[in-house]
């Protein structure tokens, strides 16, 4: 049995209770290997997912499902650098994915 992360989907359920994704431009900060991204991305209009660690982003890009191509983009970037290069008011929804601490 491979390692199973939150097979009960408690995190996904809590996320869907808290946030509306339909038609939203989403920025996920600290996406890692896309573990959480896959769970909501199909509902969003567009997802930008960033992480400062290259290994996670490489894995996320490799595992990007075909149906999400064009809808999800992964960037190997720290939030400060990403924010500096971003226009204001660009996102409807931002997710700090276990990344504030």
């Amino acid at each position: 049995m491979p390692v199973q992360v939150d097979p009960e989907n408690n995190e996904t359920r809590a996320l869907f209770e808290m946030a509306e994704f339909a038609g939203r431009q989403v920025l996920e900060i600290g996406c890692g290997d896309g573990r959480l991204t896959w769970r909501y991305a199909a509902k969003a209009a567009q997802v930008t997912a960033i992480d400062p660690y290259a290994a996670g982003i490489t894995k996320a890009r490799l595992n990007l499902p075909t149906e999400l191509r064009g809808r999800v983009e992964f960037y190997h970037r720290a939030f400060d650098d990403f924010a500096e290069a971003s226009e204001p008011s660009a996102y409807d929804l931002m997710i700090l994915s276990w990344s504030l601490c």
Partner: protein
Amino acid sequence: MVHALEEIRRLLRPGGSLIDIHPVQEAPLTEVYQRGRVLFAEPRVAYDYDEDIHQAEQALTQCVRRRLFDREHSREFDFLTYGSSVPELRDFLEQANAFHESSIDDAEATREAVFYDRVEGIMKAAGKGAKVAIHERVRIARLKPTG
């Protein structure tokens, strides 16, 4: 952290939302399950995120006090990561925690090794189908930029 939250506010459209997900400030449990029954549950040793979590909570509180964000809703949930063996789960956690810059000293490493030996013993005694898990309590919050 407060600066990051200020930047988040700048990037959010009016009426947008910030969702923050992070573990609560208590050590995760290492648990052993057999057919859905908990055979063992103790705090994981060498847990050292307390200070980071404390700082994250403080940053959020400060941003709410400064009226950058309103905290609209928050709740907690259980987050479990299961492995079929202690080495498998430890490998996975080591990779996941490789992103954290902290390290443990020799004494802590020894305590951790003894702890996981004990967990492995319990798993062996439980027999086929036993699973080991890390059980974290996690808080999710929705914040809205003010004004």
